[in-house]
């Protein structure tokens, strides 16, 4: 038996070890690289998930006249006509405090508290009070038993009211320091309202015949308008500045039983006796208001009793005596639905996470809801949606606005459109130049010339896109603005110059043509292009003066009403085309060069000219390769970020005009991602667009690669 030397054993061991390491490492690296797709998908996935809700154990409390939900979901205030405002902890139901100050109990009437927690009370002595519940929370203390509730009472003056309908607090105006309160009431004489401002109470009745059978009424946010719903099924819109006047009306179709606003106080929800639920808005058009129903929701079971809106987004709660639902205004989707017998009052926490409903017997039911992205649906992303303030459904991208109650508009269509538009213009510019350039280089160029051109173009492929973007945005765009007409006319003048050079060339002696021309045509054409450029510079201003009245942009605006943006699609087309030319050139040149010599030789031997051979034999044979070059170029153009970011105004328009800008998917990520809150809706939508870009470019490139491999195999048979 021979002894194995220890060095050999060590070598064997190292070998096994390294095999393991590299196999595992390689596998892990490739998995990690492909894991990018998984991660991006995972970040976008929650958009597709519908909301989840959980029923919490219900509590038994005394009958209430209204619920005041707190943002935390840990406490709730109950309006109790016989004992005041009672605060309890949730979910245990432990009583925290009962606030008995203010109105004399038992109260005669109380309004349904508004979404912001304001309510009006008519007490035993017919005095009118306005209240608002506040929680004092020591900062960072999560224990609700340490929190102190107080009710801020205002008013307290004698008033004679029939049925209290709704209360609205108006922010202090002018010199006033305190908010003023307005309350609406209906009676046998029709509608009346009372205003409490700076300690004084004023009472006004509204004598408009149409409002005789008013069942519900509500003030607009600024107090300048009033909405009233009637038993006869109409919705009236009144101007309240000066003498009340009826502005316009809409037919609802069934007796109106509830009115309420969505966050932002512009969309009015209208609920009917049969459970019909619509949203309405008034759009100011010149001097008049255009009233329209602009969202329609699934019906509820039974007459709708009231609405509460979230204070964070456009979702709202609606309830009927046996049905509690949460819908989202923009998507019209029902996020939450529960049947709850004998529901009298309900409430939604500010963030819309908790839902409470109280029955006539005092049973307090509650649910928690987890719907992180209710504003997203397939229709919002891809279809037309009727947004607040818009006259008709549209596709809009506007992710954020100046105010907290802004309705995000997250349609991807303008971005996809912008991407396609940019790509199209880039391709229009790049394809002819790159493909013909590649054909020339591969078939006709002198080998010495070819050896210079190919690497030069390859290096150009590495040109940083920020450089191209900078040139496009700060040099080309102003230049084009000044001399758009030059650029439009340049191709024609270049052709003209070629027509001048060609006859000269034909007249050259044959020996010169063969010796100096073949394979070097390109070099001879450079002066021709310069001549064309010179002609263009000399003649274009006269052309502009004679045919376009001296100013191309003014002519464009006057004749075709097209506005000219400085950073427009032509600029992007140029710059992005520039970025794409080397790629298309290089890939298609490879394909054209590797067409087997046997084919071209056969064609030439049969008497075909070099061009005939190139056009009829080489191009058709290499066409899959050329196609794959175009696909690779498309992939690059679709994902290009910096050029588009710098060379367009990044306005998400949907307009094919070459003189307008656009916003592409890629540039949109660069613009919005730094500002998008983590795991928010915008953040996830941006990941969705990244996924889209990834998938699109990956498919294009894979397709191109498969075609190329196929082609390589075919050429091998020669």
């Amino acid at each position, binding site marked *: 038996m021979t002894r194995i030397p220890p060095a050999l054993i060590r070598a064997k061991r190292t*070998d096994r070890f390294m095999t393991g390491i590299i196999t595992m490492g390689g596998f892990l690296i490739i998995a990690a690289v492909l894991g990018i797709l998984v991660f991006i998908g995972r970040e976008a996935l929650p958009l597709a998930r519908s909301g989840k809700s959980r029923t919490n154990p219900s509590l038994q409390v005394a009958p209430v006249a209204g619920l005041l939900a707190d943002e935390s979901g840990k406490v709730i205030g109950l309006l109790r006509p016989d004992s005041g405002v009672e605060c309890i902890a949730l979910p245990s139901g432990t009583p925290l405090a009962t606030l008995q100050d203010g109105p004399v109990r038992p109260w005669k009437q109380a309004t349904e508290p508004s979404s912001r927690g304001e309510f009006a009370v008519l007490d035993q002595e017919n005095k009118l009070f306005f209240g608002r519940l506040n929680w004092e929370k020591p900062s960072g203390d999560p224990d609700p038993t340490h929190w102190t509730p107080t009710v801020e009472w205002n008013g307290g003056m004698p008033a004679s009211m029939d049925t209290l309908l709704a209360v609205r607090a108006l922010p202090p105006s002018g010199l006033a320091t305190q908010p003023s309160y307005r309350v609406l009431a209906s009676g046998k004489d029709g509608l009346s309202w009372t205003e409490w401002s700076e300690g004084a109470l004023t009472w006004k009745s509204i004598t408009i015949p149409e409002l005789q059978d008013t069942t519900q009424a509500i003030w607009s946010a600024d107090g300048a308008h009033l909405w009233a719903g009637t038993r006869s099924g109409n919705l009236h819109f009144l101007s309240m500045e000066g003498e009340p006047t009826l502005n316009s009306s809409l037919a609802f179709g069934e007796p109106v039983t509830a009115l309420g606003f969505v966050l932002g106080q512009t969309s009015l929800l209208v609920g009917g006796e049969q459970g019909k639920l619509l949203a309405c808005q008034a759009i100011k058009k010149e001097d008049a208001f255009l009233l329209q129903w602009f969202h329609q929701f699934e019906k509820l079971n039974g007459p709708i009793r009231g609405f509460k809106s979230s204070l964070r987004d456009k979702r709202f709660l609606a309830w009927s005596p046996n049905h509690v639902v949460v819908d989202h205004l923009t998507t019209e989707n029902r996020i939450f639905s529960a049947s709850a017998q004998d529901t009298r009052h309900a409430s939604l926490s500010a963030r819309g996470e908790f839902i409470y409903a109280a029955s006539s017997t005092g049973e307090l039911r509650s649910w928690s809801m987890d719907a992180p992205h209710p504003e997203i649906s397939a229709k919002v992303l891809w279809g037309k949606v009727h947004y607040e303030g818009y006259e008709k459904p549209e596709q809009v991208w506007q992710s954020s606005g100046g105010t907290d109650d802004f309705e995000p508009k997250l349609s991807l269509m303008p971005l996809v459109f912008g991407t396609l538009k940019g790509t199209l213009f880039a391709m229009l510019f790049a394809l002819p130049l790159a493909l013909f350039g590649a054909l020339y280089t591969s078939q006709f160029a002198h080998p010495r010339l070819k050896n210079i051109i190919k690497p030069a173009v390859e*290096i150009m492929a590495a040109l*940083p896109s920020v450089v191209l*973007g900078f040139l496009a945005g700060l040099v080309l765009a102003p230049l084009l603005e000044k001399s758009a007409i030059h650029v439009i006319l340049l191709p024609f003048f270049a052709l003209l110059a070629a027509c001048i050079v060609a006859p000269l060339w034909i007249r050259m002696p044959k020996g010169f043509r063969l010796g100096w021309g073949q394979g070097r*045509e390109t070099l001879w054409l450079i002066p021709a292009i310069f001549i064309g450029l010179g002609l263009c510079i000399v003649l274009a201003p006269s052309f502009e003066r004679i045919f376009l009245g001296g100013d191309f942009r003014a002519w464009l605006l006057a004749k075709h009403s097209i506005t000219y943006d400085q950073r427009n699609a032509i600029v992007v087309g140029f710059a992005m085309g520039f970025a794409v030319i080397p790629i298309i050139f290089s890939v298609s040149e490879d394909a054209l060069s590797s067409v087997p010599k046997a084919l071209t030789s056969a064609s030439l031997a049969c008497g075909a000219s070099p061009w005939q051979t*190139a056009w009829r034999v080489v191009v058709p044979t290499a066409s899959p390769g050329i196609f794959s070059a175009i696909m690779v170029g498309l992939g690059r153009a*679709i994902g290009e970020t910096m050029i588009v970011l710098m060379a367009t105004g990044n306005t998400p328009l949907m307009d094919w005009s070459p003189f307008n800008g656009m916003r592409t998917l890629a540039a949109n990520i660069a613009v919005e991602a730094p500002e998008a809150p*983590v795991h928010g809706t915008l953040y996830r939508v941006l990941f969705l667009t990244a996924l889209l870009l990834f998938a699109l470019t990956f498919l294009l490139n894979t397709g191109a690669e498969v075609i190329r491999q196929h082609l390589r195999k075919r050429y091998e048979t020669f």
Partner: protein
Amino acid sequence: MTETLNIPPRWRAFIRRGSAMVWLSGAALALSLLMMVGLVGYIAAKGLGFFWPSSIVQVQTSEGPILGEISAQEKAHGTDPAKTQFRVCNRDLFGQDYRWVPSADIQDPQRPADAVLVERLENGPFIGFIQDGSSGETLVLRAVDGQTLEIPRKHIVRIVPSNALGVFGKSRVYASRLWEFVAGDPRESNTEGGVFPAIFGTVMMVLLMSIAVVPLGVVAALFLREYARQGWVIRALRIAVNNLAGVPSIVFGIFGLGFFIYTVGGTLDQIFFSQKLPTPTFGTGGILWASLTLALLTVPVVIVSTEEALSAVPRSQREASLALGATKWQTIWNVVLPGALPGILTGLVLAMARGAGEVAPLMLTGVVKLAPSMPLDASFPFLHLDRKFMHLGFHIYDVGFQSPNSEAAKPMVFMTTLLLLLIVLLLNLAALRLRSRLRARVGGSSF
């Protein structure tokens, strides 16, 4: 019919046999090449010309005298008359650096020999005359409209009496300005001074990226080429890795933001830096995350070129090694990898070139317009991977597009662009040379 269209036979051949089309396709190539050469030439001319001291011209106009460098001239266009743009500087006195004057209004151009351009630390350069240079502390300057200005000498970068300088003197000013640009700190929100922090940031980031990308790429390529069983799975994987190079860089950027910064960085912060929360340490953009993101972006480049190099190592060499009793790993380590080294280097250089030129992913992962401190300095632990950094490409974007005074900043951007372009083109050229040497060696070997 044929008589009226009497085409000479030369022409007929020219058109029918397709020579015309050959010329046309030649024209496409000529146009593409011209544009590319023109682009680089334009940037070079604009950037390099900026540092050359130009003459200071004094003219009389109806609105008083103007003293400055002529920066642009525009011909009459439509109803607009011909205009001349002067770089008058003196931002603190006149409110603007540039001024357009109708060319017809210009009279009596002169080049006063005592006119100077004073580069200052604040408010941009000053163009005027030296009123009183006797004090060692301050310098009293007089603008062309008679206003005087006293500035401390330590705020003065250099005084250039452009009209009095000869070619040699101008060259010295040029060299000193160029040195300041490459080695100095930026001033006046990046529109003046140098770009040293941006150069440093770019180099640092590319180096960190290289450290990450080489082992990753080489191990993956070794796995794909030497260890994995070749079959359709590996073929599909190879295509997938290949195509990852074509995925838009911004997608990698948002991946870096979501994964490295928010997921990994956020977790690191909670474990190691919880005392600093809610101020993030690694949970915000930084040079480490930017480099790793770019490493992911460029790893396909390294994989592809390493694989190519591995497959180019002659079979006979491996077989010789194995026949001598070497294990597979010994063969790879001693024979294959050294043979493939130029290919690996080519991949690395290409990756560096790509990495240096990318901006979009950096915008999401940690680049800033003005970094207060460099990622590498004398304070412990010397290398600060969590710091934000400056980058040449982002410098171009920021100064050119976000700067309030973009007209004054334009020449500076051209210079930065030229610098970035040079770096990227030189790296690519190096890769090209490496590759051709590799090919020559493999092709010319006698195995």
